[in-house]
């Protein structure tokens, strides 16, 4: 016997007390971030916009697992990554469904996983519970119904630009990102309501980049439209889902008939972003 009975009991008791103390939270927000830091959230109650969902659901609950380089299914839900890895991105478990399909919560895999709906692979989220109350899920559904706008990026942009200049605030996929094939839709978000009459394939172009030495651009047919319920977001649907390869999306921001907001404000310059689509292993 290595230890006496008394010493053993003391040691077990010590196990209960040696974990150390929890932090007192001084100077931190409700997500444990220093108040006023870049990652600090707000104390606003949950509402149907990404910033609020991030602060009330993704950051305090989901990022306990879905964070970092080894996040489950490659899904990172921190504030910097959640939008680009959710909206318009095929789920890893059921690739035929997008994690978030703007305008359609019933076809958005994140909603199915949060609800524990039939057809999901694996368990309901958050894994092992407690599961989100239906009221919280309904708020997320409403955000998706509204077109799943990137409000956090827009808020950042509007702070930076004082809300006056019409600017592109976010894309999915992100510029330089690598996403799994097939890619069925691309999302471009702006800070102002867009003039719907200017959303067309003359102002929005999608091209495949020839990866050979020529780096030639081959235009691809597409359909572009404002997101249902959110006139600040353009949904680009390639006629044929994008397979493995490199692609570039361009937005014409100057010249006659260029994309503009409802107040005729233009981007002032053409905008473009590129990304790669990779085959599923």
């Amino acid at each position, binding site marked *: 016997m*290595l*230890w006496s009975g008394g010493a*053993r009991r003391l*040691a*077990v008791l010590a*196990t*209960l007390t*040696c*974990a*150390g*103390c*929890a*932090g*007192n*939270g*001084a*100077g*931190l927000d*409700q997500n*444990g*971030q*220093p108040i006023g830091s*870049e990652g600090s959230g707000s104390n606003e109650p949950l509402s149907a916009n990404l910033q609020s969902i991030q602060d009330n659901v993704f950051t*305090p*609950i989901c990022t*306990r*697992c879905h*964070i*970092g*380089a*080894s*996040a*489950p*299914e*490659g899904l*990172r839900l*921190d*504030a*910097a*990554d959640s939008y680009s890895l959710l909206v318009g991105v095929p789920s*890893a*478990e059921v690739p035929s469904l997008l994690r978030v399909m703007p305008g359609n919560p019933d076809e958005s895999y994140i909603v199915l996983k949060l609800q524990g709906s039939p*057809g*999901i*692979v*694996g*368990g*309901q989220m958050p*894994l*092992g*519970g*407690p*599961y989100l*109350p239906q009221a919280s899920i309904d708020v997320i559904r409403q955000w998706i119904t509204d077109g799943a706008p990137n409000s956090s990026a827009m808020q950042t942009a509007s702070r930076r630009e004082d809300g006056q200049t019409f600017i592109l605030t976010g894309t999915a996929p992100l510029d330089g990102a*690598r*996403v*799994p094939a097939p890619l069925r839709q691309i999302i471009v978000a702006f800070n102002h309501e867009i003039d719907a009459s200017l959303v067309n394939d003359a102002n929005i172009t999608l091209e495949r980049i020839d990866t050979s030495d020529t780096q030639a651009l081959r235009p691809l047919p597409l359909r572009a439209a404002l997101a249902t319920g959110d006139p600040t977001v353009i949904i680009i649907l390639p006629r044929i889902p994008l397979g493995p390869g490199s692609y570039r999306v361009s937005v014409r921001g100057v010249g006659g008939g260029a994309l503009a907001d409802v107040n005729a404000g233009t981007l002032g310059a053409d905008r473009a972003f590129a990304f790669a689509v*990779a085959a*599923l*292993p």
Partner: protein
Amino acid sequence: MKICDFRALLRHALFVLALLASAAHAEPYLAVQTGLKCGQCHVNPTGGGLRTPFGDVFAQRIMPHDHLDTGADTWAGEINRFLSVGGDVRFDGQYETTPGSASVDSFALEQARIYLNASVIPTRLAVYVDEQVAPGGALNREVYGMYWSASHEWYLKAGQLYLPFGLRLQDQTAFIQTVSGINMTTPDQGAEFGWEHNAWDAQFAVSNGTAGGPEVDHGKQYSGQLIYVEPRWRLGLGANFNDAAAGNKSALALFGGLKSGPIAWLAQAELVDDKSIPNSGGKMLATLLEADWLLAPGNNLKITSEYLDPNRNVAENAETRWSLVYELTPIQFLQLRAGVRYSDGIPQDNAEHVRLYFLEVHGFF
């Protein structure tokens, strides 16, 4: 398996177990209490999943408080010398409180898993499947082929696998499991080389680094551990590096076990630096200390204390968690677990102050 073969196996198992100072139950503390390596009771050399015939006999003769006689035929998992099956089912009743939220009480099928091992060349080449069949749709956990050397000193496996890195606990929500991102919910696709020599045990794996998601970059994840196992104690070192486009992650774990009379101690401390987490928030520290007290055959008291510093660049943000779980194994293949789990953290985050009370029925074979 023929009855005579089984009896020989049973004699062998009981002989080995008779040499051990005490009986044991499930999870890594079982290995610490018996002084055995994980691969003694599990087909997977790094633990978890399908039990070996030795593990099945152990579960029937040593684990339970009482053994219900099944006559000459005893379950050993082997359909024949080529094919083995097994499974785990966990069903929970939970009551959970979180400040500021309504309490939640629920019954839930936590997990049902089926294991299949086809030893197409017995003792040398096998195809292994670990499939979660509930809740939700079927989900591959592990699927790999494994080749053993003739001396059984090394093996190579390839497919989807749990990564070797520290203690492989049953509780996938433990801080040391979530902080590293390496646990049984995040198998990865790759290859693993294992080496076992006397008291030494080592594994090294190369995988996509996407935790089951599709590969999105050219970087790979490297995971490894080296463990020294003595009958009364063991000490291990685990390391992980994930070369990811979103930011590299590195992790280092020191872990071990000690047997002191009826108590098996488990401990792990790990440091993680994940550069993919924004705002310099990726430097983390997680620890676990667990005591498993075998009060009587089939009766185990598990006490666990955990500590987490979720961002070492920020002060006063630490979290703690205490668990007290009583595990009763009244008869073979059936375990009843009752426990409480208290979380504590910064006062402004209600989610860090959860109180969980649970009852669990665990069936396994």
